[in-house]
Each structure stands twice: as C-alpha cells, then as structure tokens.
C-alpha cells in the first residue's frame, strides 16, 4: 500500500519534470539562456579583460572572484568542522580496530613510481590554470590524492614528515589567506577589494595575482584533503 503510494507520488512528480524538459533549448543551442546574457560578453572580452586565456579561470577568479573566495572559506570551514567532530568522537575506538594489513609489493612499487610524476602533474595543473583547463581546485585534489596514496604505503613515522607540523595550520588555511592577501593588494593598488589591473602594461601583475590565487587554492585544498584523511585514519 505504502509502496504503491510512493510510486504514484513519484510518477506525479515525474510527469511535469519530463514535460518541462521538452521546453528546454536543445544542447548547444545559441539561444539558450546560458549564452544570451553575460556568457557571450565573457567569451568575447574575457581573454583581454580578465587576463587568463582559460575563460573558466577568468570567470571563477576574476568576474566571480567573490564567490570563489566564499567557496574556499566554506572548504576551510568544512575541514574545521570535520576535525572538530573527529577529534571528539575518535576517543575510545582505538582497541576495536583490527590491525591493518600491510600493502602488497605491487601497490608499494606503483605508488612509489607514480607519486613524483603525479605530484608534478598536479603542480602543472595548478600553475597552468590560467592557460589550460584545470587550476587550483583540480590540481590541489590531485596533490591531496598523492598524499593519501603515500600515507597508504608509508609507516606512521614517515607520514608525519610529509606535511611539516608547524606550518600545517597555516597551509590548511592557505586558500582564504592568499585570497585575502590578493584582495587587499587590489584594495591598496586599485581601490577595489579583489580589483585587478585592467591596462595592458600591468598584464604581468594581473597574471601573477591569478597564479598566486591558484597556488593558494591548490596548496590549501591539498592540505585540507590530506588532513581529513589523516585524522580519519589515525588511531588517536
């Protein structure tokens, strides 16, 4: 009875959704709302006005810079919340956990060979975010994944050296800190928080600001992922 009611309810919800789908513009249509408002302006003027050849970077770091600042703050706050919960909850469960099986030789070998290459790829994605697809978020996640892979094959003692202890707290907050620094730089030089130079002579400074943001987001993201993983996996 309940099951039938659920099915009827789902069908009733699905019908208007499917009907609404028929009214959507076809995929890639130039008349779709995504292309008729600010989108076309960004595509036409983005490269010379915002300073990055990758339009996506133009939008997330320049045109929509405030949103991205909010986003990196949310990521940092989420990590703080996870740490707060795990550090309280992780108190008494240490004995219940079975001994971890040591990783196989194959896993160890592959991680050891791939880790430097993957880390280099992550650095490339971060530093080239203003030219090619990618950027701080993507590269940072890849770098964080490298840390996780290394944590799986290394001993607890070696892992603690992967991220230096004292600057760890600063590195976790790297993205919001760098964002504020670049924003204040814009405020002092161009009278607008997160303002970028618009003239051609200052193009180098503009690119430097974008790259600094990408590096900050990348380092912060990687550290946040590594920290969450270590806190979840650690025995304390």
């Amino acid at each position, binding site marked *: 009875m309940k099951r039938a009611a659920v099915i009827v309810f789902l069908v009733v919800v699905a019908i208007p959704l499917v009907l609404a789908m028929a009214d959507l513009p076809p995929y890639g249509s130039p008349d779709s709302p995504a292309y008729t408002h600010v989108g076309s302006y960004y595509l036409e003027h983005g490269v010379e006005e915002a300073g990055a050849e990758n339009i996506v970077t133009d939008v997330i770091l320049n045109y929509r810079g405030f949103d991205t600042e909010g986003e990196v703050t949310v990521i940092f706050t989420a990590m703080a919340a996870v740490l707060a919960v795990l550090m309280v909850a992780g108190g008494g469960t240490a004995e219940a956990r079975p001994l971890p099986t040591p990783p196989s030789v194959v896993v160890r070998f592959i991680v050891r060979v791939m880790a430097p290459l993957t880390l280099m790829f992550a650095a490339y994605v971060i530093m080239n975010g203003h030219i090619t*697809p*990618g950027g701080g978020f*993507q590269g940072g*996640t890849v770098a*964080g*994944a490298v840390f996780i892979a290394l944590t799986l094959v290394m001993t607890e003692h070696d892992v603690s050296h992967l991220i230096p202890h004292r600057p760890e707290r600063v590195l976790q907050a790297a993205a919001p800190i760098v964002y504020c620094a670049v924003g204040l730089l814009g405020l002092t030089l161009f009278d607008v928080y997160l303002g970028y130079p618009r003239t051609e002579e200052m193009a180098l400074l503009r690119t430097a600001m974008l790259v600094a943001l990408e590096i900050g987001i990348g380092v912060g993201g990687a550290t946040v992922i590594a920290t*969450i*993983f270590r806190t*979840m996996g650690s025995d304390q």
Partner: protein
Amino acid sequence: MSKLFDLLLLLLLISCALAVVRMKDLLAATIVFSSYSLIMCLLWLLRGAPDVAMTEAAVGAGVTTILFLLAISRTTRYERK
C-alpha cells in the same frame, strides 16, 4: 555514433545509481559509486567541460571513494536492516 555512445553512458550511469541505492554490501556500493563518478567524468568531457571532468575524476572517483572506504573500515561493511 556519438549519440549512441552518450545513450550507453547514460544507461550505465542510471544503472550504477540504482545499484548504489539497492546494494546492501557497502564496500561494493562504494566501488560502484566510484564507477558512477568515472562515467559522469566521461560525460562532462564529452560535453566540453574538461575542468569539471578533472574535478569529478579527482574528487568523485578518487578522494570520496577513499574517504568512504576509510569510513567503512572503521564501521561495518554490511547495511543493517
């Protein structure tokens, strides 16, 4: 041809999503969920969004799966009734 490929991917995507919800073995569900992310990543790529595809591959298929696995290793593998 590409339409056929799209259709195949979408069907796989839906069956993965349904399988994740139905499965009682959480370990298997996590692995299927990571393949869901990989299919989603391919779809993003085919739609010309390499940025999103990279994020999906790294976060969806990589980091999220590992965090789920870690959570399972600290709790139980099978869903209780």
